[in-house]
């Protein structure tokens, strides 16, 4: 035992290290969220948190469940590929409670020109007009039924 008779200082250093490592392990276990590293170097639960964000646009399927008549009319015309909320705006609240938040009345003078006002960068095959010359200030729905725009007879004020 003669060899270790002055080893006390070494033991003290070893003890300090051991306490330090233990403290690190404990603090790490307490502070690092359990899902960290579940899939990779990030908090696995944040995936579910991001997925929990509320939906604002209901999606066209929700519209079709109730408004099948309008959808049938739209499917006959040129606007077949245009989803309801592209013009009517985000209406998830309306689908959750059809009674209270009614969709706002749309102003075709603003809405139609958004897509159909002539613009040199638009594809040539896309129907475009100079709105001022085309309608001389009249609202579009005077002649065009927005759900079936080429069917003039269906126009309503």
């Amino acid at each position, binding site marked *: 035992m003669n060899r270790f008779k002055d080893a006390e200082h070494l033991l003290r250093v070893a003890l300090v290290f051991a306490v330090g490592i233990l403290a690190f392990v404990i603090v790490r276990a307490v502070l690092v969220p359990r899902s960290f590293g579940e899939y990779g170097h990030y908090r696995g639960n944040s*995936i579910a948190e*991001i997925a929990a964000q509320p939906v604002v646009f209901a999606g066209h399927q929700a519209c079709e469940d109730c408004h099948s008549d309008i959808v049938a009319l739209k499917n006959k015309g040129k606007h077949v590929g245009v989803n309801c909320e592209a013009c009517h705006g985000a209406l998830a609240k309306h689908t959750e409670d059809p009674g209270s938040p009614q969709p706002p009345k749309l102003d075709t003078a603003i809405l139609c020109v958004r897509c159909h006002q002539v613009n040199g*960068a638009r594809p040539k095959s896309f129907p475009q007009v100079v709105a001022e010359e085309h309608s001389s200030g009249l609202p579009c729905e005077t002649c065009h039924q927005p759900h079936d725009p080429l069917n003039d007879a269906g126009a309503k004020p």
Partner: protein
Amino acid sequence: MNISRRHFLILLPAAAAAWDCVLAGTPEAAPNYTLTKHWWGMLVDISKCIGCGNCVRACATENGVPDGYFRTWVERYHVSDYDLPNPTVDSPDGGKNGFPPILGAGGKNFFVPKMCNHCADSPCTQVCPVGATFITPDGVVVVDKKYCIGCRYCIQACPYGCRFLNPKTQTAEKCTLCYHRITKGLTTACCEACPTGARQLADLKNPNDPIHAFLRTHSVQVLKPYMATGAKLFYNDLDGSVR
């Protein structure tokens, strides 16, 4: 408030249990959704884009994007004849309110919708020092708001300029590919609002997705392929002048 030693000892396990809840976090939000069965991307058909700005407005509405910042935006290119390297690009307010009549005569003009490319080897996730931004197992690049320290490394690292620092939360923000929608079986807000079908959400792991037939039969490109980012925002009819 005076807490006796006895009360403290009684409260200790309760506090430990509460902290345990904090560590465990929230449970799975979409139980019918399997992460490993999807690999999301998007198809943008430039020949169909009419620059109406519906996607930009829809994105802002769906995700509460602050004014003047964009998770998606639309650019208008004007290329004079034979001058591909020097296009004129404008994007007034991200194209949110449409575009004024065309800039110059002659040449060609077209719209290019832009957003996060949801790269499979994304530079932005590689530089995050705290593991706040990452690629989900279904291929979407997202930001963990609770972990982001707002250091802006990722904003500099993105070669497509798709990230910004939210002025309110001071955390990095970007397109999530409407993760809260696609995990519920809906399409993204921008695709929902696009009137011409210029944007199509694509699930590359779904064999029935029309994306596969489209990729086989069209000349499809990604932006900055030389960056080897593994971008999953596929452009059909992309002009060589687009940066």
